[in-house]
């Protein structure tokens, strides 16, 4: 991974070539004779049927396994643990002065018998260290400590935290997130199973004042937590998310902590842990609230980094794709990660583009409208099911009306370009989202 100067011309080149090739196809489709046009239409329709089939298959598989995961928890109950092991909570912070106080306050209110909080200041240039130091030495339910180091990125901050922490379970969180009081209690129970190395928590969007953030709130529930719940059913969660992830120290030490060569250190670490044989589960009652980007620009930046980071993590372990056995859950989980990051966005963007072109040029508009109505109904049902499972606000459900055609399509365009840049290995930087004081 290169972190050098951003090559704007390479990035723009990717965009221009993609847009140019697409327009070229449209022009060619217009110029060719009616016989060939019929063949093209037939091919497009066949491709769209395949697209729709994959979409339905993916949706129903995720919904079904997600439901099984939910039912397992609610019917069989949560696993009991005899003794709750002490937990070290790591809070890496780089210029998080505005939001750190809230995160640390939430950690004071956790319902858990014994834990320590370690704030790792990653060479901040704002008042992060000053704020963290005010908490140092506080003793209540948790004992607060602060360490500071030269700036080196989140992964190095977390590694420093792991090194300085003491307890057998380690919770990694983001400084812009805060935890629900019972988050530790609910997540720690999974470790009664000695094969569990990591537990992913449930991340929710806190700021919901705008349509964009409400769409993200729905996306976290329907697009991120639903797959995670489904993966949790087979103990193969492929991303233990940055805002709330609980790890067994033994597992972290076995894999050597976080690697610094990807921009999605959470996905990379999860895959590493599963590769050496540990299982990764999901706990929907280990809730962390996080701040979602409030502008399309910040959202673009965030998803660009996620996509490239995930692809970097996948690239490091391409061999898994050729080895479905003996660990089939790991294989299926990695395949899904690759499909969602690499294949699906491109497929989705071009399928929608073809929808539009075929509707305009070949008079198949009616068919496509019915198709879209069907998809929207599917999204509404999925939103209703997943929102109900999480006992979330039903006000999010109507967002499903524009979820696919606007929000997901927008994100998939960004993901598509990010994927192409990653394939060409163009330079990238970490980027830092603007924090909001009011959240």
């Amino acid at each position, binding site marked *: 991974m290169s972190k050098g100067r951003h090559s*704007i011309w390479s990035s723009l080149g990717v965009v221009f070539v993609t847009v140019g090739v697409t327009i070229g196809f449209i022009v060619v489709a217009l110029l060719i004779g009616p016989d060939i046009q019929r063949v093209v239409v037939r091919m497009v329709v066949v491709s769209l049927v395949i697209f729709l089939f994959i979409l339905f298959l993916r949706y129903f598989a995720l919904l079904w396994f997600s439901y099984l995961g939910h039912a397992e928890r609610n019917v069989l109950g949560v696993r009991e643990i005899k003794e709750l092991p002490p937990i070290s909570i790591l809070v890496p912070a780089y210029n998080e002065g505005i939001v750190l106080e809230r995160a640390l306050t939430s950690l004071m209110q956790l319902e858990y018998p014994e834990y320590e909080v370690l704030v790792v200041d990653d060479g901040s240039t704002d008042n992060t260290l000053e704020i963290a130091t005010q908490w140092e030495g506080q003793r209540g339910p948790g004992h607060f400590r602060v360490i500071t180091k030269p700036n080196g990125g989140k992964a190095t901050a977390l590694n420093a935290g792991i090194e300085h922490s003491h307890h057998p379970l380690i919770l990694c969180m983001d400084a812009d997130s805060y935890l629900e009081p019972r988050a530790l209690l609910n997540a720690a129970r999974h470790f009664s199973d000695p094969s569990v190395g990591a537990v992913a928590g449930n991340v929710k969007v806190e700021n919901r004042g705008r349509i964009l953030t409400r769409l993200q709130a729905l996306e976290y529930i329907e697009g991120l937590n639903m797959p995670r719940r489904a993966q949790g059913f087979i103990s193969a969660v492929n991303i233990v998310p940055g805002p709330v992830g609980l790890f067994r120290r033994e597992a972290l030490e076995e894999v050597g902590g976080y690697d610094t060569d990807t921009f999605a250190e959470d996905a990379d670490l999860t895959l590493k842990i599963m590769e050496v044989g540990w299982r990764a589960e999901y706990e929907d009652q280990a809730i962390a609230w996080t701040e979602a980007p409030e502008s399309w*620009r910040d959202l673009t930046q965030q998803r*660009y980094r996620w996509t490239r980071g995930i692809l970097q993590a996948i690239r490091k372990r391409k061999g898994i794709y050729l080895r479905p056995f003996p660990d089939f859950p790991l294989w299926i989980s990695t395949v899904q990660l690759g499909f969602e990051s690499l294949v699906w966005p491109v497929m989705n963007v071009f399928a929608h583009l073809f929808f539009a072109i075929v509707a305009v040029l070949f008079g198949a508009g*009616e068919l496509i409208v019915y198709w879209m*109505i069907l998809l929207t109904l599917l999204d509404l049902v999925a939103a209703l099911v997943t929102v109900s499972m999480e006992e979330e606000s039903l006000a999010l459900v109507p967002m499903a009306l524009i979820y696919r*055609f*606007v929000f997901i399509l927008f994100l998939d*365009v960004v993901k598509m370009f990010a994927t192409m840049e990653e394939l060409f290995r163009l330079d990238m930087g970490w980027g830092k989202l603007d924090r909001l004081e009011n959240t």
Partner: protein
Amino acid sequence: MNIVDLLIAVVVVTILVTIILAVVTYVAYKLRLSREPTPRDEDPNALRYFVSYDPAASASEADSTLGRLDRDVAELEGHAAEA
């Protein structure tokens, strides 16, 4: 215009506008990124615009300057006495 035609128009316009907006946002993001200052390869401690003030060095320099002045004054007084 019947309802189906209206829906066709809505769907097609929404898809095209979203894709165009996404491409424009992505390009804008990249352009903005290219304008952000990037870390320089040069030594961050190296002097660029100002000479930093070092009290110890300045003190010794001042001493030596005063010494030189004293010597010059003494020399001038010597010349004046001779004259």
